């Protein structure tokens, strides 16, 4: 008897890593990879960096070559949306009307860019999540001297601001937080970045956006909310703009799952420590909120590294579950080669990086949500710094700007498991004092 397929929904970093791992670990049965974008799986971090800059063309972003994909023997459904999942029977429905009963499903549908009321259909107002988004923004910014207002001063807004300045545009970065990226990395690292952006000519503003000025269906400016703007800046509550980038965060792509009571979709798809959302249903990447066994609470990361690592972990644990499942074992055995993998809790050391101008930030562990942060600026002008993030008396995250790779890897080892705060401080000092 032939096995039902395993299906992976979402054909990007996490979904591809999951599909590859299923094959590497021994799944020889049918494997369906479903993605609603028309493109072969591509990488997102360069969208706000090399692609927006024009240094790279879309082909450079492909995560795997055609040959590498062919070797996976996938039933690859691009331009196809999953529209529903019945968790109990592990049955997917697709937007072409097809129903697909599966042996197991891995959900890797990521997140979608948030937008603002009134933005839809306005020429010149952009978001930046997909390749099509990035190409549209790049086309809009052809030439130099555009007046670009970026709404949102988190990591995406900051990266786009850096590229747009390098391209010679007039850039204003508006955020409700007075210091860019402060929520992710703390105020002192954020202030260091703010200095770098100012030095490159970006105008930083603290305000909420109330709406857009338009003319003939095209944006001509951004209106800042009265009263919420910083008192000193209240005189100018309209920012002229021919292009606006909304970089105001994202929402997990869980809407298509409906309201199946078997699945908890509050802020992503809730999973256990094994990345399982329900029997035979797993999740990975930006969409997955799982119980991190080391940090002891549910976490969800929108980091590129986590997408690959979690895709691989979900694949392993799904196969382990199927191997151990009661019922018709012959179907699984026929479709599987080698020894089934062991089930393992997913306990990564989270990692993210960001490139802005020549500054590279690299962070390990949890940097958001810290209750204490100690930042050491090693060289202000050179933007070299290290920061330690603590929670409940333990160091849980570390960030490096402008440090050599050996030191960065040393810092990773330091917070791989939570260390008492004082001990971690000493070790950071020792690690950054030498070399």
């Amino acid at each position, binding site marked *: 008897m032939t096995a039902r397929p395993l299906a992976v929904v979402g054909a990007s970093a996490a979904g591809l890593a999951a599909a590859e791992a299923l094959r590497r670990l021994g799944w020889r049965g049918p494997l369906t990879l479903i993605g609603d974008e028309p493109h072969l799986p591509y990488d997102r971090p*360069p969208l706000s960096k090399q692609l927006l800059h024009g240094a790279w063309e879309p082909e*450079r972003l492909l995560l795997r070559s055609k040959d590498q994909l062919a070797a996976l023997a996938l039933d690859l459904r691009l331009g196809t949306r999953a529209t529903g999942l019945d968790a109990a029977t592990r049955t997917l429905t697709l937007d072409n009307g097809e129903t697909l009963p599966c042996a197991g499903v891995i959900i890797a549908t990521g997140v979608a860019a948030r937008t603002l009321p009134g933005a839809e259909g306005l020429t010149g107002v952009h978001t930046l999540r997909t390749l099509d988004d990035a190409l549209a923004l790049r086309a809009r910014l052809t030439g130099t001297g555009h007046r670009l207002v970026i709404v949102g001063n988190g990591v995406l807004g900051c990266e786009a601001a850096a590229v747009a300045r390098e391209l010679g545009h007039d850039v204003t970065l508006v955020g409700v937080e007075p210091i860019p990226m402060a929520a992710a990395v703390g105020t002192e690292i954020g202030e260091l970045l703010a200095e770098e952006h100012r030095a490159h000519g970006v105008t930083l503003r603290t305000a909420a956006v109330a709406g857009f000025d338009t003319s003939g269906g095209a944006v001509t400016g951004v209106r800042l909310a009265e009263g919420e703007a910083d008192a000193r800046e209240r005189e100018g509550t309209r920012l002229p703009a021919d292009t606006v980038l909304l970089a105001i965060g994202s929402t997990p792509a869980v809407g298509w799952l409906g309201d199946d009571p078997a699945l908890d979709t509050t802020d992503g798809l809730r999973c256990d420590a094994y990345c399982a959302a329900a029997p035979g249903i797993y999740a990975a990447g930006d969409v997955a909120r799982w119980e991190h066994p080391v940090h002891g609470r549910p976490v969800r990361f929108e980091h*590129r*590294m986590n997408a690959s690592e979690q895709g691989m972990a979900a694949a392993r644990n799904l196969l382990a579950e199927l191997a151990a499942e009661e019922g018709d074992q012959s179907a699984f055995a026929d479709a599987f080669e080698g020894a089934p993998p062991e089930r393992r809790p997913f306990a990564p050391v989270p990692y993210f990086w960001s490139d802005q101008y020549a500054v590279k930030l690299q962070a390990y562990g949890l940097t958001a949500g810290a209750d204490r942060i100690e930042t050491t600026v090693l060289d202000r002008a050179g933007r070299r710094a290290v920061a330690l993030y603590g929670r409940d008396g333990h160091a849980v995250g570390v960030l490096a700007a402008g440090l050599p*790779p*050996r030191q*960065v890897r040393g810092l990773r080892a330091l917070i791989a498991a939570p260390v008492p705060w004082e001990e971690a401080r000493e070790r950071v000092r020792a690690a950054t004092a030498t070399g």
Partner: protein
Amino acid sequence: MKITLDADKCCAAGQCVLVAPEVFDQRDEDGIVVLLDAEPPAGQHDAVREAAAICPAAVIEVHE
């Protein structure tokens, strides 16, 4: 097994060095990947496949 790199794409994450330190290293000045052994011995193959899968910039290509 033969390894090729598209080092221009490297974002200096260093994950390859953590997984297969005998095969990959990073340049001191900018963290860009360096290949120590383009045809590693069989004992390294699993680690190399893992590094290729995990690299967040799709830099490492493995030919078998």
